[in-house]
């Protein structure tokens, strides 16, 4: 059902696109039609695939590293009050600087390769993951903690067995947001300076007025991002297995 709906939505968008091209009579170097783009995608499929892999690795690398760092900083803020007092302002200040503004710096420091793009993605992902997970860790049902206290629980066991699982739903939604925005980091990083990746390929095609190739790269990027998003979404539903049942119950009632 879900897949069918997705296909229907994609088909609808393509139709709107084609109709727009027909109605406005836009020349192909402004807005190429879907057929033209499909043809370009086919012709350049090998290049597109290679560049897509580069971008995908950058996104996944950023996601893994950003999620790990985000989860760790959220956990350390819960575990230590003094650490939280120092870390929280740093986090907020770091978000006051637009990540795009420091993209050239990252390329300067980390070079043209993948690492500067991964760093971009990490910077973008880090905050939503930290904020969501920290919020979840903080808002544990107080009576659970009271129960644990009466049971003489070890402090670490409370985090491990109560706070962390209780925060997983919040962590999952943070990770969903992160997955949705991670491609932005990778692409912006590629625009600023790179010789590989879909972002680079788009600029390259743009400079040669190959607008259809540019659109093809855009479509591939969309597919990569969507696949990644739904994979993460699926995984999160599995991980938060008890919550899924609750929501289903509510819906069916």
């Amino acid at each position: 059902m879900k897949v069918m709906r997705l296909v229907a939505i994609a088909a609808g968008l393509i139709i709107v696109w084609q109709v727009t091209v027909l109605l406005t009579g836009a020349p192909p170097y402004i807005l190429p039609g879907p057929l033209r783009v499909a043809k370009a995608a086919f012709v350049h499929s090998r290049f597109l695939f290679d560049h897509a892999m580069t971008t995908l690795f950058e996104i996944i690398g950023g996601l893994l590293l950003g999620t790990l760092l985000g989860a760790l900083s959220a956990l350390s803020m819960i575990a230590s009050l003094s650490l939280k007092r120092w870390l929280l302002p740093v986090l907020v200040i770091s978000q006051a600087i637009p990540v795009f503004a420091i993209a050239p710096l990252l390329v300067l420091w980390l070079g043209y390769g993948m690492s500067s793009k991964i760093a971009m993605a990490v910077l973008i992902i880090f905050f939503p993951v930290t904020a969501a997970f920290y919020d979840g860790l903080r808002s544990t049902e107080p009576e659970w903690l009271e129960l644990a206290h009466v049971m003489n629980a070890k402090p670490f066991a409370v985090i491990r067995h109560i706070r962390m699982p209780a925060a997983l739903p919040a962590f999952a939604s943070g990770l969903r947001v992160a997955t949705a925005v991670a491609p932005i980091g990778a692409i912006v990083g590629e625009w600023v300076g790179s010789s590989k990746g879909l972002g680079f390929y788009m600029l390259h095609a743009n400079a040669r007025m190959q607008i259809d190739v540019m659109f093809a790269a855009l479509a591939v990027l969309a597919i990569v991002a969507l696949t990644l998003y739904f994979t993460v979404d699926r995984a999160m539903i599995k991980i938060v297995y008890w919550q899924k049942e609750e929501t289903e119950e509510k819906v069916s009632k």
Partner: protein
Amino acid sequence: MNNNIKTNAGYGKHPSAPSIMLENVSFGYPGEQIFRSLNFTVEAGQWTCLIGPSGCGKSTLLRLISGTLREGLSGGIRFSNGKNYNGLTAWMAQKDLLLPWLNVLDNVCLGIRLRGERSSQKRERAISMLKDAGLGEYSNSLPSELSGGMRQRVALLRTLMEGRSVILMDEPFSALDALTRLKLQDLAASLVEGATVLMVTHDPLEALRLGHRIYVMTGKPAKLSKAMIPPGPPPRKPVDPMIPTLQAELLDCLEKGNKT
């Protein structure tokens, strides 16, 4: 509901269950004095019920005894065996507080997990407890698959699994329907036998069924009535002819306390 619950008493046998002595206990929040020089003894090995209107400090009293609330407490809370509350009390609340991501068995064994103990022997015991309570086939189910009565039964077993000699109960049966409540009261009475139990409730009938002693708590700062000691051993049958009279007495006492 499962009807063939074996009331196999004995999980709560505590030959050395202590009495709890509250001496000159005062406690309050800024602008609100809840207890002032309260003196009160919970008899060893008996089931004591506290009834009173909502917000009179009943739950607070339990928290003071369990040690979850310590700031702002003055006076002494002592156990007759000379021990600290640490590791002495178990607590059961109105909400079952089952962790939704753990199955029934793991929920019953929560204390073991949180203390980092590893004991397959205790797990075996939990399994046999679940069987005796008619929950054997639900060991691997998640709490969300259980009815309210079953969940509270699991919470009761989790409380007993702690093997503590002092059990504090905060309206543990008040969210259940009448029939389930009666059954669970009987089960609890048989399982905790021998432990020192302090149960908070707002239901006079429940107190009359289960309590060796009943106190009415009213006012601010809270005062306790004289102990009512209903005849006969608990759990008393709801059809017991003396219950309506005593219930009227308790309600009367509650009402008087509210006026002053």
